């Protein structure tokens, strides 16, 4: 049996493999997604060329980019309008979703009694009830917010409710033993324990509130200068201006991706120290 030479630092093959893998991973993490994205765009371009798709049906990416550049002023000011509604409605969805979840966590009775209304809100098509909203709500921003909120709040409500109920039973017992009030139990135990679930719901709601803002504008319309991306899309569609339509869609997609990344970052920062989903495994 041969003894290993103690003098030179021996890296056993498994260890070497792991180090190599780590280095690769660090690079790949940013390069690969970009590469795939570029590949996808290239494919889009090729598909347009190969199938001779006319630009008024599916414009080639270059043209869309060109339009994005040419119409930048118009499109970005619209993007801002849409983002404003998005963030406001996301904030409202957080407040509403968490608020309702907390209410429901108070007792099975409350949950059973009021959850149906939440579901009704979730499944009611906005287009169908917009006339009602239109009659009883005057402010345009309020209308938009209401619509976007209806779209976005449910995942937060549902996930947070789930999280509030997923508390370690022994910890609950501990709180009970120490005579914790409902409020203390909620603030010190249930809410922190529900964090991973809530943040998961938030990531879903981020995209939904963006799409909600767009749909709201589709339905509720916008007037004059302050119109968001939905109006741009409708207008471009009506004017048969496909490049601008796709430029607007791409802005929405980018906004969605940025929102998701931002919420993922928040989630990681909050959970990094204790939850499996965000922990960096030390090895």
């Amino acid at each position: 049996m041969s003894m290993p030479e103690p003098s030179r630092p021996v890296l056993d093959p498994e260890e070497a493999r792991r180090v190599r893998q780590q280095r690769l991973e660090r690079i790949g993490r940013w390069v690969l997604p970009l590469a795939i994205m570029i590949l996808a765009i290239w494919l889009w371009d090729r598909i347009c060329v190969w199938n001779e798709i006319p630009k008024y049906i599916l414009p080639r990416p270059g043209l869309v980019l060109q339009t994005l550049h040419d119409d930048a002023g118009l499109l970005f000011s619209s993007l801002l309008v849409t983002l404003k509604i998005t963030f406001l409605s996301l904030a409202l969805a957080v407040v509403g979703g968490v608020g309702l979840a907390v209410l429901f966590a108070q007792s099975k009775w409350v949950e059973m009694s009021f959850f149906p209304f939440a579901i009704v809100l979730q499944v009611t098509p906005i287009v169908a009830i917009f006339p009602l909203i239109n009659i009883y709500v005057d402010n345009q921003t309020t209308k938009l917010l209401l619509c976007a909120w209806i779209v976005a709040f449910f995942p937060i409500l549902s996930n947070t409710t789930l999280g509030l109920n997923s508390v370690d039973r022994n910890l609950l017992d501990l709180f009970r033993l120490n005579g914790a009030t409902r409020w203390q139990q909620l603030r010190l135990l249930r809410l922190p324990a529900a964090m991973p679930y809530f943040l998961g719901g938030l990531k879903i709601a981020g995209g939904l509130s963006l799409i909600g803002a767009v749909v709201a504008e589709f339905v509720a319309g916008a007037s004059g200068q302050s119109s968001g991306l939905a109006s741009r899309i409708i207008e471009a569609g009506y004017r048969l201006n496909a490049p601008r339509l796709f430029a607007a869609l791409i802005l929405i997609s980018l906004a969605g991706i940025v929102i998701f990344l931002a919420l993922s970052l928040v989630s990681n920062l909050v959970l990094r120290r204790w939850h499996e989903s965000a922990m960096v495994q030390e090895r």
Partner: protein
Amino acid sequence: MSQSEGMSGDSGVPAADDRAPLLFLRNVSKTFSTGTVALRGVDMTIRDGDFLSLLGPSGCGKSTALRLIAGLSTPTSGQIEWPGASSRSDIGFVFQEPTLMPWASVFDNVWLPLRLRGISRAQAQPAVMEMLERVHLAGFADAVPRELSGGMKMRVSIARAMVTKPRLLLMDEPFAALDEITRFQLNNDLLDLWQDQRFTVVFVTHSVFESVFLSNRIVTMAARPGRVADEMAVSAPYPRDEAFRTSVDYAALCRQASTALEAAMGTNAEPQHVHA
């Protein structure tokens, strides 16, 4: 009831029968919905100021008994009575598992029972840090549980249970995950504190030596169905110290407890449970 009531002799511990009963378990049974009979017909009296150890084989219902006493579980039949009615709300509990809040620092975990009683961080600071010193974790106040070793987590849990100085302390194998030296130290600390402040302890342990060293009464339980097999008084006077640990008395008492435990395990009925 006043704490000086029924004091006897200079052992510093009142005689068992003089002291006021804190709670009774009367013919308590607990059957889980799976069909497992965890406890059957348990009768027990815990007196104010007792240091009572529960000794018994794994799965005989010790943890279940503690949970029943704490009111975290209700008996399937039989009653648990608190004649004094006072102390029910003033219980410290060391669970068998550390049961820490994973998102909170060690300090915050220990602060918790005080916080729930409305004591601010600043006010709690001295008491919390004192308890952390006692369990040798003062340096880890800002660590979160997953950065601790198994024994360290358990020590945090012990510190948390004791930080309120409860009237009744329920401890479920608190020192099992600790090395013997730390264990001895904490044994001594606990005894000192107990003699000083006269609270009541119900202590689950697997160590015959530990139970004899610490308690004034040892209840031995048998398994399936969980029941009381034997009860013995440990008449040795307090304070107990290293001298006691090496005394002939101590050895004899340990042998007696061991025999009781062996007897309890010998009478082991057939495993009893209902899983298809």
